[in-house]
């Protein structure tokens, strides 16, 4: 697969998150290197979504250390993670359905008009439309119209808009939570190819959650398995197989042992 550098971009150690009496994460570890696609797998309730929400600033951990470029990072909100160059495509999309494609791509990062009116927050719709068109073109995404609400797009098209937004703004890390779960095979192939483009053309590191092990072997450089909120395995994808991943996911055998929490 693609040669990945050994430089560690993001490192999480001993991440704990409790929701009342329910422990979603019980000391999870994760390491993301530059220029790699890193798959995150695990059974339902293993804590995958919670862990990436910690990375995207959507959830604040109760315990643990998060480092970006070797420096401690603390994300109090999604905005903090964005500032650090981390963009996320959520499982439930997170688009504003009544706004059009261009506005969704720029939501929270609107382009303003020139001059004094910018201070009052006057937005430049034309510039946003132009920029959105460029971004989509670069990623090879074609949409029937920019000016219709995204609720009028198909599921695959909406997913493409969400990916385009993340790829357009992500400077370091692209996180995708089950990006292809609801898509048809053709669209799945396309979204997986978008992920590779984000890595190869834009130099991003990608974390993606998947339930589908064939996708993991198709698209990822390394893979981490979570079980009951803890990390049970991290390996280059080429050095593992479906059987080993399944064993790790179901806990029939601990292949690597738990990293010290």
């Amino acid at each position, binding site marked *: 697969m693609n040669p990945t550098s050994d430089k560690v971009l993001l490192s999480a150690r001993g991440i704990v998150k409790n929701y009342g009496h329910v422990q979603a994460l019980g000391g999870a570890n994760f390491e993301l290197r530059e220029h790699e696609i890193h798959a995150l797998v695990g059974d339902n309730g293993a804590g995958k979504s919670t862990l990436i929400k910690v990375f995207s600033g959507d959830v604040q951990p109760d315990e643990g250390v998060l480092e970006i470029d070797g420096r401690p990072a603390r994300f109090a909100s999604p905005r903090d993670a964005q500032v650090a160059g981390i963009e996320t495509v959520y499982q439930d999309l997170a688009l504003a359905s009544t706004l059009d494609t261009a506005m969704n791509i720029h939501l929270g990062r609107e382009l303003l008009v020139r001059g004094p009116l910018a201070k009052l927050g006057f937005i430049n719709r034309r510039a946003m439309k132009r920029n959105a068109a460029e971004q989509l073109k670069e990623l090879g995404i074609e949409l029937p119209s920019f000016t*219709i609400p995204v609720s009028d797009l198909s599921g695959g098209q909406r997913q493409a808009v969400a990916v385009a937004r993340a790829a357009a703004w992500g400077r370091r890390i692209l996180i995708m939570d089950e990006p292809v779960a609801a898509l048809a095979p*053709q669209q799945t192939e396309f979204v997986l190819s978008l992920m590779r483009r984000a890595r190869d053309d834009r130099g991003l590191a990608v974390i993606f959650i998947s339930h589908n092990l064939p996708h993991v072997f198709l698209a990822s450089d390394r893979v981490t398995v979570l079980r009951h909120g803890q990390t049970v395995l991290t390996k280059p994808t080429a050095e593992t197989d479906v059987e080993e991943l399944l064993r790790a996911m179901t806990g029939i055998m601990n292949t690597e042992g738990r990293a010290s929490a």
Partner: protein
Amino acid sequence: MNIGTHGSASSEHSPAKQLRELAARFFKLESALLVAILGAMIVIFTILSPSGEFFSSGNIRSIALDTSEILVLSAGEMLIIVAAGLDLSIGSVVVFSSVVGAKTLVALSGSPAQVAQFTYPHLALGITAGVAVAVLAGLGWGLVNGLLTAKWGVPPFIVTLGTLSVAVGLAQVITGGLNVPNIPPALQNSYGSGQLFGIPWLVWTAIIVVGILWVLLELTRYGLHTYAIGASPEAARRAGINVRLHTISLYGLMGLLAGIVGVMDVARFDTASIFAHTQDNLTAITAAVIGGTSLFGGRGRMLGTVIGAFIPATLRNGFVLIGVEPFWQNVALGSVLITAVYIDQMRRRRARIA
């Protein structure tokens, strides 16, 4: 590389595309329909009223004057509904603001003995302080609504139902249930019944406020975020928008507008009337919804709301002039409202199917 994302939907003559174009045309038609409805009312009332009295400049001015306060309230309510919120307390906040504003005005304009004889040695101070107190009181209630809604997550329907009761109750406590008397006629004479270029100051106030809100909603980041929050608070939050702060600011803005209407009301009627404005919330919501604002948030246009705000006063005025019992106004208004909600439902259903 374009597998899947531009399948059949983007080809030129697919049914989906045709359906969308048809829909787009229909919705342009919808706002055209509103203009047509109001236009038809004007034409019919003009023809049926004695010697076209309905369309006289005096009568048009009177309709505009009757609509000015509700126009300001409707514009604010519409912003809140676009953000998928609701404010039922606006009428009570208007009453509270006008009462505390009027009390301040009277108290600071002169001694009780002077005021009782309509002598106001400190009129400028009184008016300035009275207006400021009224507007700030409105803002305060708005912030209370916003804080309770955004921080505690109490549904706005419940929060504002509560403040609806509390605000008017406190206003009654303050005044002992009476209107505030002895307000300087100067306020009414200058602002309340004054005109500029033949247009009453109160109508100018409404035009300016609605104009500012229109620009805010359509042209600024604030407006875009308002739509986004209405469409999906979760999406807005993840896009880095401070949803709580924005929500609080929206209710604060609504309170501020209610405070301004409180001042308008005192100036117009020369009293702080404690028993008025009980229907303002429903009238404002009706105006927004008739105008195409979706109660589910994320959709709405200011032009529609403006037209929606003019319909009640137009109906009332027209029915009086052509000799129809004014009670029919309620029947007509309710029918238009239900039609508007029906259109919104159809639109949402279509959006889900597409």
